[in-house]
């Protein structure tokens, strides 16, 4: 990690050349983090395979490329964003569109919903609500090993801000549609901050899409604060083309007795890396972390999960699954850390993978690091194929082999999907997964997004 590859130099240069421009449009508070983050990034660099957390993921094909860097939306972008509509049947959601990492609406930059809920632009929130913003921004996204988090802090200037005040239940989920579109190969970063105050209850859906066939690299950081006794769900649906790289880093900080779930559904994408950090910082907190990916062709999907049991009596559960076809590769990197004194911890982790071809490859690294004794922790990981006995059982009921295989793969995937609590979204995911397994283009019928 000491040697500074050319790859890292490129991004150091990018920062130096553009920091004035970036700072000029950002709130002063966000700017206070940049210099320090830049220092850390220059020490850690772009993670290489020597970095234990990136052992199975090679970022160079995407990082070692000359992109047009995207720092500011232009007028035409606003029109594109306005046009986009997502129609998941029956999904009644508060929609937000981010284009290339910015909140490009011509109207209000921040919208207030009933009961004092705010959704809108991160940068705008930093200016409008300094008190709330400064309490949380930059507090949870921390890493001693991953330079990409610091790269984001150093350079990102907008993204989504969601604030749900104490005691408020939001019955409609918030849906954030991340669009990437450009006539040039493009690198962009954005930053989200989600605050669920005490006793609040809501869900957010994040959909990642690419709208044009250029090569894209996105590095996103999302910080989530979940207050005492609050309930929060985050569902991420990824459907990007094979020439796009999406890196998401989500940090969920939980207070006492809060319950959260995170669900990453990766349907399509060139290189996907989802890092999810669960910080159980209040007693009685529960976290559920799910992930599913379906990869084919040359795709690579890497799920990294870190569950940090900081205090006693918390519960965590991880379930990650992958189906690998063609020459695709996948990685799972899951860690349960039980800190000294975190007695009464219950932590469970499961990773199952199906490899369909001899050219596909799966690497998995589930880890337990336990520093307290009164705990129950376990994990299991498998890499294998479809169960032959189950296949025969289905065939013996008159269902042909192809259909039986599909059914089994669907069942395999559904075990992750079934944890999505929003019914229309769950049904839609089941449909998309089924289409994907059948090898069809899996996109919503009415969606303008061209995936695959």
């Amino acid at each position, binding site marked *: 990690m000491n040697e500074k590859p050319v790859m890292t130099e490129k991004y150091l240069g990018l920062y130096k050349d553009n920091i004035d421009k970036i700072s000029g449009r950002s709130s002063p508070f966000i700017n206070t983090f940049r210099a320090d983050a830049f220092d850390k990034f220059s020490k850690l660099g772009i993670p290489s395979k020597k970095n234990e957390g990136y052992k199975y993921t090679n970022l160079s094909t995407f990082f070692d490329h000359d992109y047009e860097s995207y720092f500011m939306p232009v007028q035409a972008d606003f029109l594109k964003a306005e046009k986009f509509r997502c129609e998941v049947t029956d999904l009644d959601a508060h929609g937000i569109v981010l284009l290339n990492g910015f909140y490009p609406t011509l109207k209000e930059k921040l919208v207030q919903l009933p009961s004092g809920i705010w959704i809108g632009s991160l940068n705008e929130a930093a200016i409008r609500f300094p008190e709330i913003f400064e309490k949380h921004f930059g507090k949870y996204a921390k890493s001693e090993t991953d330079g990409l988090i610091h790269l984001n802090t150093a350079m990102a200037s907008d993204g989504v801000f969601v604030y749900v005040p104490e005691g408020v239940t939001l019955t409609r989920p918030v849906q954030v549609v991340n669009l990437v579109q450009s006539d040039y190969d493009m690198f962009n970063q954005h930053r989200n901050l989600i605050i669920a105050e005490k006793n609040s209850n809501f869900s957010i859906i994040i959909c990642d899409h690419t709208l044009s066939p250029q090569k894209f690299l996105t590095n996103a950081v999302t910080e989530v604060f979940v207050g005492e006794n609050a309930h929060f769900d985050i569902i991420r649906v990824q459907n990007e083309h094979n020439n796009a790289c999406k890196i998401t880093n989500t940090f969920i900080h939980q207070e006492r007795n809060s319950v959260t779930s995170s669900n990453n559904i990766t349907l399509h994408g060139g290189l996907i890396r989802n890092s999810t950090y669960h910080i159980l910082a209040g007693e009685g907190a529960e976290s559920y972390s799910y992930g599913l990916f379906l990869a084919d062709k040359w795709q690579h999907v890497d799920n990294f999960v870190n569950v940090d049991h900081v205090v006693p009596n918390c519960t965590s559960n991880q379930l990650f699954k992958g189906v690998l076809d063609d020459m695709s590769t996948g990685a799972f990197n899951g860690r349960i850390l039980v800190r000294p004194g975190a007695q009464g911890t219950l932590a469970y982790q499961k990773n199952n993978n199906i490899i369909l071809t001899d050219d596909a490859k799966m690497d998995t690294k589930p880890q337990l690091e336990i520093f307290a004794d009164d705990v129950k922790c376990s994990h299991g990981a498998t890499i294998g194929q479809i169960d032959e*006995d*189950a296949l025969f059982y*289905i065939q*013996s009921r008159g269902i042909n082999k192809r259909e039986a295989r599909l*059914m089994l793969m669907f*069942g395999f995937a*559904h075990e992750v999907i*079934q944890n999505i609590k929003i019914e229309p979204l769950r049904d839609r995911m089941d449909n998309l997964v089924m289409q994907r397994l059948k090898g069809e283009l899996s996109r919503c019928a009415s969606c303008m997004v061209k995936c695959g």
Partner: protein
Amino acid sequence: MLVINNLKASIDGKNILKGISLEIKPGEIHAIMGPNGSGKSTLAAVLAGREFVKVTEGTVTYFGKNLLEMAPEDRAKEGIFLGFQYPIEIPGVSMVNFMKTAVNEHRKFKGLEPLTASDFLKMMRDKKELVEIDSKLANRSVNEGFSGGEKKKNEIFQMAMLEPKLAILDETDSGLDIDALRIVANGVNKLKRPDNSFIVITHYQRLLDYIVPDIVHVLYDGRIVKTAGKELAFELEEKGYDWIKKEIENTVS
């Protein structure tokens, strides 16, 4: 409907079935009994089309067709149903979806339109009632987390849904308490018609108190060593399998 002639089969090179001949006519209930390891389940596996059992000799003709050439799903659509000794758990696949696919495959085979969702659900309800299965089971994943008895009842339920011509019940009675046994047996009796047949594979005579067979075969060491009417089952219950073993040894020596 089914004619088995000198059937020999092996698993991993080990000969299990050593020449079985058997004929089943429409409307008959055959019981196949025998001690553990005699080849009862292997016979069921061959008829349903499991690949790990290799047929080395003999023929199986089903309504004039060569059964051994058919894929498992085609056998099923032709009306062969296997009630598994150990039904498989399939997480993530709901019973409703599983059965709907199976029923519609059967209908397609017969040239019928697929059932509408409401017709299908009605059919589920009716059959559930018929076999006295807890309706909650139908909302879960296939066999997942079912108790032993629930799995067996689920097999009978699926049989009711698919209305086979020839049902092979492989030790459906094992591991059942008396109430579950009664439910399973009643299900079978209700589904009995003059044109369909059953092969009931069992270790004990107990099930045959409820399902009265027309013909009882005793399978021993890969061969049918005795065939008689239902009274044979009682005789076996009384004298045990040792009686048969001795009889065979005597004839051999």
